[in-house]
């Protein structure tokens, strides 16, 4: 339909031209646009129209245009322009019909176009409207979102409140429960008491009934053999106003007595406490370093005279046994002064603490401050010392007690005595052992001495004999022969033995009584041992035996002699 585009349809009437002028021309083809433009432009003159319309068909190409038109129309479905009988002959009727059809079609198209344009306009306005609506709705959405957040927040707060209220409610419920329990228990108690009272009431009613009915009235009386005297031995007195007054007096006396006693106790307590406070004050003053007090005193110089007077008064009062007075001002003074001292002491201690902590960290090296470790070491040392001292004291005390006080218990005292005796006995035994050993030694020595003496005696005898014999021999030799030599020996043995006896006799005379102490004189023992010999006067062999046998006897005798 390209041709259709380029070739405009000039057969349109002027009415449709006007219609076209009024419509918009947005989506028309450029050629139609042209046409529209042409049509919208002011009413073209008849001539220009004609000129425009004559562009397609001129007088030259009539048949060509008719054939072209026929062709186009037949393709569009219109009946042919040519008559049926003759070819190339214009069927005016069909041409007119065709023209009418085309007009009708044109009108329809125009109408359709109009409608479409109207619809288009409508849609445009609808779109605008919808866009406005959309914007509004968006705004509304935002607003409602914000509202939702706000409402959520409020909802949360309300829930919190709700929870709190629930909690309160629970507490209240618990309390109510508790009170109900209390009420229940009270109610049971009341009921119980009520029942008891009712039972008693019933009993009373019965008794009353009984009494009313009972004719016999049991006499209420006391039957006593004889009246007993009063405790204090006095007679009973009438009750008069005087006795009443006396009773009142006595009652008040008792009360007053009680109060006085209590007051005394309280006074004593007060006095003690005051003493303690005074002491504390003094100690506190002594604890504080003296320079602390000077600036204070200087500061108080302004108020000085008055205060010093008061202090002096206080001191004077102190001296005058202040604790016996209990007036208000004195008490106040005491408490105030103690408070003051306490504050100063506290400050001082705080300062010391600070110093100590600083010393610990190593910043300050205060000479007054002892480091904690040293302090602890010292305390440990002191504690050890104390422990040792305590132990010493304990042992000393024990010993003292043992020495000083006699035991209550006989057994223990006897035991103790036995202990001492045992010690002594053991010591004695040891000494005896020594003594015995010594004795043994001495005995041995003695024996050896005696043997030696005997031997010596014997030898001397022998020597004497020999000498005598020799002399005799000499004499005899000088005079006679050897016959008498043997006979001389034996009697000389006995004679020899008698000599030691004589010697012993001498010793005996010189014998002293032995001492109790074991200082042993060998000569004396010798005497004693040989003392026993005469009763057992036998040969020298027997001598030895007897000395040995008589040893135990000796000992006994010795013992006896010693103990004597």
């Amino acid at each position, binding site marked *: 339909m390209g041709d259709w585009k380029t070739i405009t349809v000039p057969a349109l009437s002027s009415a449709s031209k006007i219609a076209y002028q009024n419509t918009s021309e947005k989506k028309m083809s450029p050629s139609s646009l042209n046409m529209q433009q042409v049509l919208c432009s002011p009413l073209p003159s008849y001539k220009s129209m004609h000129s425009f319309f004559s562009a397609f068909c001129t007088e030259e190409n009539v048949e060509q245009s008719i054939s072209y038109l026929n062709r186009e129309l037949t393709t569009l479905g219109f009946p042919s322009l040519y008559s049926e009988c003759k070819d190339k002959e214009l069927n005016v009727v069909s041409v007119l019909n065709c023209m009418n059809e085309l007009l009708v079609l044109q009108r329809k198209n125009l109408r359709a176009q109009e409608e479409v344009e109207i619809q288009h306009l409508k849609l445009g306005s609808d779109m605008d409207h919808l866009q406005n609506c959309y914007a509004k709705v968006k705004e509304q959405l935002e607003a409602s979102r914000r509202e939702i957040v706000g409402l959520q927040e409020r909802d949360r707060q309300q829930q919190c409140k709700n929870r709190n209220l629930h909690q309160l409610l629970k507490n209240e419920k618990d309390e109510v429960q508790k009170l109900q329990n209390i009420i229940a228990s009270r109610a049971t108690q009341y009921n119980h008491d009520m029942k008891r009272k009712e039972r008693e009431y019933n009993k009373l009613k019965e008794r009353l009934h009984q009494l009313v009915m009972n004719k016999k009235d049991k006499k209420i009386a006391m039957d*006593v053999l004889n009246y007993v005297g009063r405790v204090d031995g006095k007679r009973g007195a009438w009750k008069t106003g005087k*006795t009443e007054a006396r*009773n009142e007096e006595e*009652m008040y006396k*008792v009360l007053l007595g009680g109060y006085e006693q209590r007051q005394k106790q309280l006074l004593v307590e007060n006095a003690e406490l005051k003493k303690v406070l005074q002491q504390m004050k003094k100690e506190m003053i002594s604890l504080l370093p003296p320079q602390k007090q000077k600036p204070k005193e200087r500061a108080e110089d302004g108020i000085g005279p008055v205060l010093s007077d008061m202090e002096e008064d206080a001191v004077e009062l102190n001296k005058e046994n202040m604790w016996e007075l209990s007036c208000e001002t004195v008490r106040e003074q005491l408490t105030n002064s103690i408070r003051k001292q306490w504050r100063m002491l506290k400050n001082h201690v705080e300062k010391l603490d600070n110093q100590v902590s600083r010393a610990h960290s190593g910043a300050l090296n205060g000479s007054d401050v002892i480091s904690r470790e040293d302090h602890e070491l010292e305390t440990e040392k002191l504690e050890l010392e104390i422990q040792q001292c305590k132990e010493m004291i304990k042992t000393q005390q024990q010993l003292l007690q043992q020495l000083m006080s006699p035991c209550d218990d006989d057994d223990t005292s006897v035991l103790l005595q036995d202990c001492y005796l045992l010690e002594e006995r053991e010591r004695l035994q040891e000494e005896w052992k020594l003594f015995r050993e010594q004795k043994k030694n001495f005995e041995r020595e003695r024996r050896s001495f005696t043997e030696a003496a005997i031997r010596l005696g014997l030898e001397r005898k022998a020597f004497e004999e020999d000498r005598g014999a020799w002399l005799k021999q000499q004499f005899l030799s000088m005079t006679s022969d050897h016959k008498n030599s043997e006979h001389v020996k034996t009697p000389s043995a006995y004679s020899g033995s008698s000599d030691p006896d004589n010697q012993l006799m001498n010793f005996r005379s010189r014998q002293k009584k032995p001492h109790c102490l074991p200082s042993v004189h060998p000569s004396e023992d010798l005497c004693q041992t040989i003392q026993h010999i005469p009763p057992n006067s036998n040969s020298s062999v027997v001598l030895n035996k007897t000395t040995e046998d008589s040893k135990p006897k000796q000992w006994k005798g010795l013992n006896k002699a010693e103990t004597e």
Partner: protein
Amino acid sequence: MNFSEVFKLSSLLCKFSPDGKYLASCVQYRLIIRDVNNLQILQLYTCLDQIQYIEWSSDSLFILCAMYKRGIVQVWSLEQPDWHCKIDEGSAGLVASCWSPDGRHILNTTEFYLRITVWSLCTKSVSYIKYPKACQHGIAFTKDGRYMALAERRDCKDYISLFVCSDWQLLRHFDTETQDLSGIEWAPNGCVLAVWDTCLEYKILLYSLDGRLLSTYSAYEWSLGIKSVAWSPSSQFLAIGSYDEKVRILNHVTWKKITEFEHPVTIANPKIIVYKEMEKSTRVETESLAFPPARAQASSLFSTQSKYDISQVPVTLQYVKPVTDRANPRIGIGMLAFSPDNCFLATKNDNIPNAIWIWDVQKLKLFVVLEQLYAVQLFQWDPRQPRLAICTGNSKVYLWSPAGCVSVQVPMEGDFQVLSLCWHSSGDSMALLTSGFLEVWKSLQPHFHYMNMI
């Protein structure tokens, strides 16, 4: 350790005389007076009916026997066995009877607490006191016996009347701010009277001898209140045991609480000593048994020995859950007693019936807890020294003193369930009472030469 032979007894009526020379016991309607040292019968009196109550007069010269059913009180003299006195209340009935402190008047409470009749043994006078209060501790005498406090109730209000005991003159009469007074007690110094309210209200009032209200103390409201009260011997402290398982101590200067003692089920403080009674099963060597077994041996075979062991803290005591829907529940401090030297306070918490708590009064702290195998029936301090005797309803008696504690088997044939005990005034001997028998334990000093010692 010296146990006497067993004597018959009825209704647990056995009392030492105040001067310590005699022991009175009842068997049905007979009153038996024994010498304390050798327990020989000195006197035997026969009353008209089964005796329900006996009391010695303060000078130990007379003894009264009350028979509530017949409404009769009979008084016997120790100096003159022939002397007799019978007081017949007749139709008035008899509920309680007691001596006055001078030992010459008898106060009889008639039935329904209608009145108190004061009978005199020296004159022919009779006094009546109307409207006495129907409570357990309604009458209280001061220690020196001069004054008597009596609780009264008129027109639904409580009153206290103070009488002079020498001539029964009314000294003071004042009303108390209590709902329903449940007890009164004089301080040992005779100057202060403690008055406490019913258990429904925790309130204790302190009145001076001349009737002035000195102070009121109330620890809490609404819950059950005071269960037991005890004065310290020096009148310095007033111990109040209450249903909330606590003991509160008031001081005599300000009448304010100085401390409260709690009785928890678990003891965690390591400084507290807990003595626990343990059963010690004796090993029986069958070969050494003789057949037929000797009587003493037979009883000792089946009776279990027990001894005390020191438990390591923390200790959990046996707890009895009280029944809450009953009146007078078994909770709270039911028993409270100071030692005579004012050093210790013994308490019992009814929730934990097997334990006795001993508090140091000087330090106001818990000192010792004794845990027994059975529920504690009764404990009593020695009148002279800080020694506590305990009985738990089995055949043993327990003694505690700061030196240690000991459990002593009461030698007896069969099962001897010690239900009650009472000390002699010198602290030398003790009477052990069971339902039907009496046994005296002599020569308690010096103590702790016994077996099972800690």
